[in-house]
């Protein structure tokens, strides 16, 4: 288990997601990487039925094919407090016991799936994000397995990303690592630089959740603003609503 960084890939105008993923996959192979299976990260959000006096709580349940026996979940209690949990897969069945209190928002079920590559100790995943069968964008996951702290290997990861993506990646640590807050001993929230923490699988899942939330928000903005929505996904991601490309994305190398 090592440090993982997510990087949304901007979709150039007039290009389909499947085309870009195919291109990136070929680039990785010519670099010397090997194709090593498929991956899937999915997310389902459950919302508490409104009760008088209590804020709406949201439970996000995620799975990561890299950890196939685990279910990752996060609860947002509506007042800014988040608690995360890693549990056995059975947790999914337990959630179904609570349908009277927590109902699944089916229309926001979102997932990223695609091909998985290995290059040295790097694991690179070219994910195409889909929500309700609609293609949303390309999300690149890069993991450097031998390292347990971002501050040690960020420059390496950055060089790798810039190398095969051909885009400029900011020198600063990704925002997930710098904007985390913790409750200190005095009970106050304070910014906690996460780049010096030992990295955990939950961090990967939290990053996915962050990006998924952005994609979901984007849709809401998109529809609200009549299709002229601006960026907000941590990068200038151009949304090409191309349902036809969903099947091809990430499955090109069967």
């Amino acid at each position, binding site marked *: 288990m090592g440090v993982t960084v997510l990087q949304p890939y901007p979709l150039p105008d007039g290009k389909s997601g499947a085309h870009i993923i195919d291109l990136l996959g070929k680039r990785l192979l010519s670099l010397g990487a090997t194709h090593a299976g498929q991956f899937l990260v999915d997310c389902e959000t459950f919302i508490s039925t409104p009760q008088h006096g209590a804020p709406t709580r949201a439970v996000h349940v995620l799975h990561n094919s890299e950890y196939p026996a685990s279910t990752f979940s996060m609860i947002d209690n509506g007042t800014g407090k988040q608690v995360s949990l890693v549990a056995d897969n059975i947790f999914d069945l337990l959630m179904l016991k609570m349908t009277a209190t927590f109902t699944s928002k089916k229309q926001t079920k979102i997932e990223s799936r695609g091909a998985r590559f290995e290059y040295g*100790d790097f694991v690179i995943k070219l994910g195409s994000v889909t929500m309700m069968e609609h293609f949303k964008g390309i999300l690149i996951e890069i993991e450097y*397995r*031998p*390292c*347990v702290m971002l501050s*040690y290997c960020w420059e*390496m990861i950055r060089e790798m990303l810039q190398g095969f993506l051909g885009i400029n990646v900011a020198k600063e640590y990704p925002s997930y690592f710098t904007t985390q807050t913790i409750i200190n001993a005095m009970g106050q929230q304070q910014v906690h630089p996460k780049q010096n923490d030992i990295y955990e699988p939950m961090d990967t899942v939290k990053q996915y959740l962050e990006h998924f939330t952005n994609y979901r928000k984007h849709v809401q903005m998109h529809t609200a603003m009549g299709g002229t929505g601006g960026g907000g996904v941590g990068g200038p991601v151009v949304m090409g609503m191309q349902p036809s490309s969903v099947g091809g994305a990430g499955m090109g190398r069967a």
Partner: protein
Amino acid sequence: MIMDKLNVTLTAVKNLRSNVRQCFEHLADGTDGEGVEESRNKFVHEFQEKYNNINSQLREVEQLINGLQVPPTAYHLGNTTYLAQETSQDRQALYPQLVNSYKWIDKVHDHSFLAFNNLNQNTLRRSYNYCSQKRQRLPFSSFNNDPDHIEKLLSEINYPTHTTYKVFRPFGSNAVAIVTIANVLKAAIVFKGVLIEWVTVKGFDEQLDHDDLWAESRYEVFRKVQEHTHSAMLHFYSPTLPDLAVKSYMTWLNSHYKLFLEPCKRCGKFIANGLPPTRRDLRTLEPFHEECRNC
């Protein structure tokens, strides 16, 4: 009935034996020695009496023995039967065990013979220094220093704050030091005396099992680093100044805390062939890719 007869016979044999013994004791004691006629007569008389007794008892024993019959069934001896060993081979599972241990010993013999031959041919051996006849020199004893020495030596080394170490001794007096360098890597250094015999390098999140110090890291980068630690081990080897060798080796090893942080000094890049610069220069401690080292 038979048992009774047998018992009587056994008692008779016992009596006979004790009488014979008494008789011989009497003979051995002899007379008072003064040659008094009276006592000599008494001695002979007593001997005759005993001798007659023996004769009559012998007859009795013979009679009793003739009266004995061959028992129709085996005697039931109660718990005493358990005293007897079971000697039938089939009943004891000794044979397969014997075969196994024989095979085992045979194998041990074969292997040790081969190992002995191989070790004798190995010119790279460092721990055992066989002095040649031509160049006589003082045999150094850096491999059998006292056990506390290595601990003292390690504690004298000035470690940076991010490095910790732990010493344990799974092989008798020889020490193994587990060194953890920042959150980057763990290394197990196996000493023989003060000489470094083996180094295993693993990732920070990997298990470094005390029972298995030889398993390789699952990460390519640490397998590569381990190769370099081995060549450095030979480079720093110095039988005449073993303490200094360990100290310089540890200094070199510590420079790995920037394993992922520093680009290659030659090409300026972090990654080559999917690996960071794994090689640290032995003098300057500068990082290089394996490929960039010689160009």
